């Protein structure tokens, strides 16, 4: 069983998975490493690591700026894979999903990426700007190395497409809670609930919900119907705010992670 499946299988019945997102290399790779350990200590079941990209067009200002800082520091996909490898030396149970845009993977080469990602201990990949129609070759490379390819479902995704996604998705489904970018502020919990039951009609995988979840209260409300809650911008905000004060950064990120994780478990 893959590490991702294991994570979901091991959760006690009323517990939901907590999936924090941070951009790799934002405020330095060493800090990202320590943040990962802090997130695990505070309840992270899966960590989503953003692969820095110069043009993060689906992200709101908070995460877009975070990408920009990492890109300016010269952090690339190779560095992200090395970071995962470093993490794996001390942690073999928390699943790691890379989230990003296609071009860095395109330039790396699909087969080389799949091999190196698997070898580094990456469990899943989510490519924001790669719909399943274009994903055939990448999926084949990842399947060969048992790395899950995770797909997004949006409020605008039709039932017919959800059926199609069911045939290609693995790991879990990432439901984009709203029409908008990451960190947006107009989450409608009832609409999310309806969409989740729509997804469940066709797909058997665990469903995580992300975009616009900022605090424990919202996370709790969402988790009533979801299998996992994904939080990014609210954590990344602390990395920006305390870029020069590592202690404060780790403490703030850890506290928020703990509040959210406790609320859904």
């Amino acid at each position: 069983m893959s590490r991702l499946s294991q994570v979901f299988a091991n959760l006690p019945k009323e517990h939901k998975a907590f999936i924090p997102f941070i951009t790799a290399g934002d405020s330095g790779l060493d800090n990202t490493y320590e943040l990962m350990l802090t997130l695990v200590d505070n309840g992270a079941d899966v960590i989503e690591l953003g692969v820095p990209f110069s043009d993060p067009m689906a992200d709101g200002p908070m995460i877009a700026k975070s990408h920009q800082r990492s890109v300016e520091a010269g952090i690339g996909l190779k560095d992200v894979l090395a970071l995962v490898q470093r993490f794996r030396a001390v942690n073999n149970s928390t699943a790691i999903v890379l989230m990003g845009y296609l071009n860095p993977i395109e330039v790396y080469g699909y087969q080389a990426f799949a091999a190196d990602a698997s070898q580094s201990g990456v469990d899943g990949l989510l490519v924001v700007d790669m719909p399943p129609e274009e994903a055939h070759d990448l999926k084949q490379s990842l399947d060969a190395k048992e790395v899950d390819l995770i797909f997004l479902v949006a409020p605008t995704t039709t039932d017919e497409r959800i059926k199609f996604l069911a045939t290609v998705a693995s790991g879990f489904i990432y439901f984009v809670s709203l029409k908008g970018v990451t960190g947006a502020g107009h989450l409608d919990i009832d609409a999310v609930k309806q969409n989740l039951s729509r997804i469940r009609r066709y797909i058997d995988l665990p469903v995580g919900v992300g975009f616009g979840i900022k605090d424990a209260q919202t996370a709790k409300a969402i988790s009533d119907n979801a299998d996992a809650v994904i939080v990014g911008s609210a954590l990344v905000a602390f990395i920006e705010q305390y870029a020069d004060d590592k202690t404060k950064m780790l403490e703030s990120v850890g506290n928020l992670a703990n509040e959210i994780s406790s609320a859904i478990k």
Partner: protein
Amino acid sequence: MNHYNLPDDSGHFDQFGGAFMPETLVAAVTELKEAYEKYKDDPEFLAEFEYDLKHYVGRSTPLYHAKNLSKKLGGAQIHLKREDLNHTGAHKINNTIGQVLLAKRLGKTRIIAETGAGQHGVATATVAARLGLECVVYMGEVDVARQALNVFRMKLLGATVVPVSSGSKTLKDALNEAMRDWVTNIDDTFYIIGTVAGPHPYPMMVRDFQSVIGKEAKKQFADQVGGLPDALVACVGGGSNAIGLFHEFIDDTSVEIYGVEAAGYGLEKGPSAHAAPLCAGSVGVLHGNRTYLMEDENGQIIEGHSISAGLDYPGVGPEHAYLKDSGRAKYVAITDEEALDAFHTLTKVEGILPALESSHAVAYAIKLAQELTQDKHIIVNLSGRGDKDIHTVAEIEGIQF
């Protein structure tokens, strides 16, 4: 001989093109694709498009034999396709007229666009004003500063111009920001992309709307000179004016096709000194399609440079990438300095002030004409007029108003 009929149903020009986009956009892009398939051969839609091009834009534009310039060079005859004479001063409006007609049929009430030099923004604000639609134009902060005149024009037309301060603050970032707006306001908003980029069907649809340029030029050339021209020359940023001229001639293999990219300070000065992905870039995926890009070894997009705000886009339409790899078209590059020289030459010799973008095409045609004999004919797409660039040129030459 096989008739050229790319892209395929999924928007691919061989390995290039496609539809790479976030899931939220898939429904809107599918809706657009279906609408375009429904209307592109619809007689009523086409009649409205042609009526507007004739009575509102002022088409057809002349094909003008630049006799003075040709004589001065002593080589091939240069003919200028005068897209600068269109309403709003460039070819861009051919496309915005077509897309806004689709927006109207889809019942969208809000139009968004990205713009570099401001020509596409102006052309979008113009058609939105005419149909009474709300219009928001995203423009990089750097471009807002260097194209102040067009910013004011858009505002006069009732558009909201949003300066974009993320990334490199130019066209690519304006496109990112427009995408962010679109995913947020997907229900009532139509995104009018200004060039032959973006996810399928944009590259095909924009090409089709712009292909009026080549259709007219072909007929005008046959009437005025007879037969086919020997070469076509057009500047390539995203590549919409170029594909508009080229498309009608792709099957006419006797016609040489030249796309002219911006060499900026010089290709040899490295990727941040130019904006020539076809001449000096590599393959990647950006803004919805697979194409040639300016990118580094990590796959990060490199912000290039050109004197012309309309050419410094780090990608290029996927059909150009295909035409390059298939060998049907050749892509060359012209420096800032050569473009400026051509700007002055055409202004002085023919009394036509070309846009700095179009000046790149003129500059290459000047080189090419001198390699050919006087009985050869070159059609140059004079894609826009240079009024918007007067400040840029004056500043470079140290002139103050």
